């Protein structure tokens, strides 16, 4: 069995002042090598929570998560995360050093090599101009792009991305979606991707895992391995998009996003 | 007039003040003189703090060792004009050691450390300097200074008695020296009486001239009461010991306190003794700038008909 990630009957509770609150309820999925699983669901349904528990930051209340067949016990650089937060860049490092950092500490690259790789990755996300700047001088979208560059430069076996493109304009977003898919093709990493955009989910994912609103339960899954950038805007694509929308929200949505 | 703020330190040498307080002698003498006197007693530690208090006017009468008093007299000449009111009593200070090889000052070696309350400037340090000058010759008064270290009396006593520290000698003070000497490992090297060639009064009461000029009656009342207290102690040593224990809320053994104040070397007198030699030495080494012509230069007139020196 070549499943890289396996979540079995996963439930996650947060302990709060008012007692435990269930965020994720009995969710199971498997992700095979070089598959791209997208978690899709309404705000607050537990997408980030699931991602953090794959990353090893949160221990499930019940059920378990296996990565490469072994139970996740701690975080590690085999599963790099792009967080949802803007402040995930370390403020005391320049943008370049932020990207070079995991290359040095987790990939054993030399300083010069790490810097060179970092610069290349930053150029790809359009941040060549600001490599020597500190993160606090970046705009929201620029911070997010730097974080994406940091994760991609380190080419992990498993990549966990939490709404990485949410703060980006259409052009930048399109470019990065394209780059991500190309890189996935090339490096064959396994991806778990959180988004609230249905179209993005179809484009990026080979499989979509739909979650209900709080607490997150599995609604259904879609196989979208056959659909890629080439199908974008096609009737098939739009039909699937509508179907997913309907499954999630039960009616046609009037949102412009 | 009518208010007296007195500051003292810790030790049996302050016994006359304890008696004043215990028997309300100042108040009594005040009434005799037709003065309602309110006495405030304060305790401070260290001559420097007492000097500050006196100059700032926070207290009226202070008690400290001859060293600080003479320095203060020197520095305030022409301004506050601090002078000595009276002595508290004659008491010896012993240089004691736990090093069996030390019989005289010459026997101290580099490995010995002599504890004094304040290196160079304290009463004990000055006494040691005078002794050193005698022992090693003129201008060699600081021969032993390098062996001295700062340590308050109680800590020095504890260190010496514990035997586990680098302190091998202590220029001490009653009642610590008596306490220490109860230990057979400790012996006396020198007494301040040996050094000064006679009995001395190590602790003195002093005030500013301003205070005396502005409160002549209160001043007189205090002086008279003090004399009465001293006389009373001389004839009531056992009761005086009890007074000490009561006023100081001391946990010391009354018999021990009595043995300290009952020693033939101790007597309670208001007349300063041995201060002039001391002042002359301070002037010689430059610690005070003015060389007094006589002991009367730095004492108030009340004492001038006494046989002091």
């Amino acid at each position, binding site marked *: 069995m070549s499943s890289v990630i396996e979540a079995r009957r996963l439930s996650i509770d947060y302990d709060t002042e008012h007692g435990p609150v269930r965020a994720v309820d009995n969710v199971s999925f498997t992700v095979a090598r070089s598959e791209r699983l997208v978690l899709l669901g309404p705000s607050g349904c537990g997408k980030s929570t699931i991602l953090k528990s794959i990353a090893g930051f*949160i221990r499930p209340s019940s059920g378990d998560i296996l990565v490469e067949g072994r139970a996740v016990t701690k*975080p590690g650089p085999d599963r790099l995360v792009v967080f949802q937060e803007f402040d995930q860049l370390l403020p005391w490092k320049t943008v370049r050093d932020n990207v070079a950092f995991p290359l040095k500490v987790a990939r054993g690259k030399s300083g010069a090599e790490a810097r060179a790789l970092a610069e290349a990755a930053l150029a790809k996300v359009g941040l060549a101009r600001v490599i020597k700047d500190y993160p606090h001088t970046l705009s929201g979208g620029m911070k997010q792009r730097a974080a994406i560059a940091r994760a991609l430069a380190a080419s992990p076996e498993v990549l966990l991305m939490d709404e990485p493109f949410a703060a980006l304009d259409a052009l930048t977003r399109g470019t990065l979606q394209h780059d991500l898919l190309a890189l996935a093709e090339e490096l064959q990493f396994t991806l778990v991707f959180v988004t609230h955009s249905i179209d993005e989910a179809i484009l990026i994912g080979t499989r979509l895992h739909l979650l209900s609103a709080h607490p997150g339960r599995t609604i259904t899954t879609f196989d979208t391995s056959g659909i890629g950038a080439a199908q974008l805007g096609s009737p098939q694509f739009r039909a699937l998009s509508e179907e997913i929308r309907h499954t999630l929200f039960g009616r046609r949505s009037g949102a412009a996003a | 007039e009518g208010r007296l703020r007195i500051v003292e330190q810790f*030790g049996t040498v302050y016994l006359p003040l304890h008696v004043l307080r215990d028997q309300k002698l100042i108040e009594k003498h005040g009434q005799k003189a037709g003065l309602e006197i309110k006495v405030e007693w304060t305790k401070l530690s*260290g001559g420097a703090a007492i000097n500050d208090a006196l*100059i*700032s006017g*926070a207290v009226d009468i202070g008690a400290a060792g001859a060293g600080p008093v003479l320095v203060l007299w020197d520095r305030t000449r022409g301004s506050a004009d601090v002078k000595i009111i009276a002595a508290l009593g004659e008491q010896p200070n012993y240089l004691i050691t736990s090093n069996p090889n030390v019989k005289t000052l010459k026997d101290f070696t580099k490995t010995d450390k002599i504890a004094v309350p304040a290196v160079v400037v304290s009463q004990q340090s000055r006494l040691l300097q005078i002794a050193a000058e005698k022992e090693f010759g003129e201008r060699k008064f600081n021969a032993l200074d390098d062996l001295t270290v700062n340590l308050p009396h109680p*800590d020095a006593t504890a260190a010496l008695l514990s035997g586990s520290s680098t302190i091998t000698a202590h220029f001490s003070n009653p009642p610590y020296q008596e306490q220490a000497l109860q230990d057979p490992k400790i012996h006396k090297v020198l007494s301040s009486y040996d050094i000064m060639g006679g009995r001395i009064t190590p602790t003195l009461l002093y005030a500013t001239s301003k205070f005396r000029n502005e409160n002549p009656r209160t001043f007189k009342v205090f002086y008279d009461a003090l004399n009465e207290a001293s006389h009373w102690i001389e004839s009531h040593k056992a009761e005086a010991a009890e007074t000490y224990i009561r006023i100081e809320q001391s946990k010391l053994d009354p018999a021990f306190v009595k043995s300290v104040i009952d020693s033939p070397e101790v007597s309670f007198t208001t007349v300063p003794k041995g201060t002039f030699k001391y002042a002359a030495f301070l002037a010689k080494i430059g610690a005070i700038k003015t060389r007094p012509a006589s002991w009367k230069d730095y004492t108030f007139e009340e004492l001038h008909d006494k046989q002091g020196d």
Partner: protein
Amino acid sequence: MTDHIAEAPIAATGSSARRLHWSALRRSAMVRRVLVLATLALLWQLAATFTASPLLLPSFTQTMTALWDGLLHENLASATAASLGILIKGYLLALLLGLIFVSLATANALCREALITLTAMFNPLPAIALLPLAMLWFGLGETSLIFVLVHSVLWPFALATFTGFQSVPDTHRLVGRNYGLTGARYVGSILIPSALPSILSGLKIGWAFAWRTLIAAELVFGVSASQGGLGWFIFRNRNELFTDKVFAGLIMVILIGLIVEFGLFRAIEAVTVRRWGMQRG
């Protein structure tokens, strides 16, 4: 194996442990504290026994006996109360002055420079430097003690608080300004809560140094008549070489320190910075 993941990551992401787990942790925090204290007492007892020099280092048991004795038969309790009274006055006054000072420094560039300069100048000054001035201005007694206490608390507290204010995230500042908050309202509703971890650390340091200073200053400013605080209790017994009572006095300081830390500061932390997710255990 799962314990490791429970340890580091849950501490990292917050209160994600299960209910039972949490109360077990609480219990074990208590257990750990007792363990630490017991170990210390044991080490002390051993060191004292080994040293065999009760004049320098009385044993734990001797000290406890002296403490008991001091509380029952001597004025240890009232001396402690007297010290505590003065301490609290000086401490609160210093906090008030510190807050005013730091607030002014936040509002005005000249005040800011003045605060930084004054702190750098006066913070390193020992209390000895203030004695003559204190006596000159306040005479002997409580006022002078409070003056010295304020000096020892004001600067470190102001420093910690000012650092906290300067580290308030921009977004919090902007939100406050956006609602038109200025002056005391801005300081009170934005800067103070946002800087609370630093302020609490300043409060703790100030509290500790207030004690250190008070004990030392009581010796210098002395006592009138027969009353006197904990510092005087210690000094007197030191003068009479009752080292066990000296240590009993110090144990009082330690006990009060522990009570204030766990009864007050930790409690405040629990309902503020920890509850708000601004500080992790």
